């Protein structure tokens, strides 16, 4: 949000103690120790045997990895903070998975935008510049254990520098496009870009 003056002060509000660490919370976020679940609709049940990850659309080389093939790709640990648009943030968590750079390199994208697709029909749009440069992964583990189903298992996208709805659960692929297009939440009132540090929650932000 741009600065707004004069600032409104809520009568009688002091807030929780906000000491060290508060600077790691984007505006409007609060610290959550658990890992809440936010999903539109029922949780899909996807077995690793039926999971695959596909990159198609405007690419030089369409690719699809089965679960077993994906498991052979180079994986890395991703320590990160995550920020949900519903106002909670979780600090110092970790995932493990394959960098999107690695996946895209083999596919040779010819467009600058993408749509992530999930089992269950969920979609979210991401410009490639948000998915590259070591800032996005397809992860299969959370804090040392297989990614739980309610958090997107067997695999989800992880784009921790954007609001967490961009980190599509049960991800099944990326479609590379030459234009931007709204995904599921982006068509339903939420911001196309979703940078938590700029508080890009809704269309009008």
């Amino acid at each position, binding site marked *: *949000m741009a600065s*707004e003056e004069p*600032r*409104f*002060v*809520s*009568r*009688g*509000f*002091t*807030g*929780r103690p*906000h000491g060290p660490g*508060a600077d790691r919370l984007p*505006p*409007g*976020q*609060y610290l*959550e120790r*658990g890992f*809440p*679940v*936010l*999903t*539109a*609709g*029922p*949780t*899909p049940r996807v077995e690793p045997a039926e999971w695959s990850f596909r990159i198609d659309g405007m690419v030089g080389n369409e690719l699809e990895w089965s679960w077993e093939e994906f498991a052979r790709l180079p994986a890395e640990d991703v320590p990160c903070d995550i920020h949900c648009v*519903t*106002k*909670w943030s979780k600090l110092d968590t970790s995932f493990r998975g394959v960098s999107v750079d690695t996946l895209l390199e083999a596919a040779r994208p010819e467009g600058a935008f993408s749509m992530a697709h999930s089992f*269950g*029909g*969920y979609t979210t749009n991401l410009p490639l510049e948000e998915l590259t440069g070591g800032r996005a992964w397809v992860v299969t583990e959370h804090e040392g254990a297989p990614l739980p189903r*309610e958090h997107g298992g067997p695999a989800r996208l992880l784009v921790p520098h954007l609001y967490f709805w961009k980190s599509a659960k049960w991800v099944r692929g990326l479609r590379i496009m030459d234009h931007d297009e709204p995904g*599921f*939440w982006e*068509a*339903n*009132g*939420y911001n196309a870009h979703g940078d938590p540090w700029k508080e890009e*929650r*809704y*269309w*009008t*932000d």
Partner: protein
Amino acid sequence: MDGLTAVSQRAPGRWQIAEVEQIRVETPRTKTFRLRPPMWMPHLPGQHYDVRLTAPDGYRAERSYSIASSPLDQGVVELTVDRLEDGEVSSYFHDVLVEGDQVEVRGPFASYFVWRGEEPVLLIGGGSGVVPLMCMLRHRRRTAPELPMRLLYSARTRREVIYADELGDDAIVALTRELGGVPIEGIPRVQLGRIFPGLIAAEAFDSGLAFVCGSNGFVESISQMLLAAGYSPDRIRTERFGPTG
């Protein structure tokens, strides 16, 4: 998830300073706050407002609350707020705010968990998950009273039933922690125990939508019952609240 039209972009989006026009005690843990924002616009039943509290040192806390009132109540929105132990914002609403105070809000927002007049509709809420569903029920009663819409509402005890005096024969209340059998005055259909698959199967419609709102565990279990009762995933809209405050 197909076929949803996008909501109007006329939503003000900007923070506004609303007046707290009325506060009603609903249950020992919930109160309804009727707010009058200077730039009001009609909402879709199911939408939410964001509220923001600012301390003198600039510290801010934000939360989202579902709208309980019908958009036919021009100029106002009612937010029903559950007081959570340790809830930074909900405890401020409950313990500090009085009628005549001002509070910063913006909205209405989001257009997935909204009712646009589809029929028939099955509403299933747990605890304060009933709030956006009550907005739908109230709006239907005023705009399309013949439209088939049923509410299944799970609460712990009779004292924790929100909007009890408005629940008619279009609602079934399931009390999960109540042992004994005195009926609730005015609510014709009360059962003891959780919402169970047989109840869902009996109340399910062959077509139309189901809206489910509550804790993640509640939504997950009800969604499974709906799937078993023949609802396809695209007929089930969910809103889950995790630990928040």
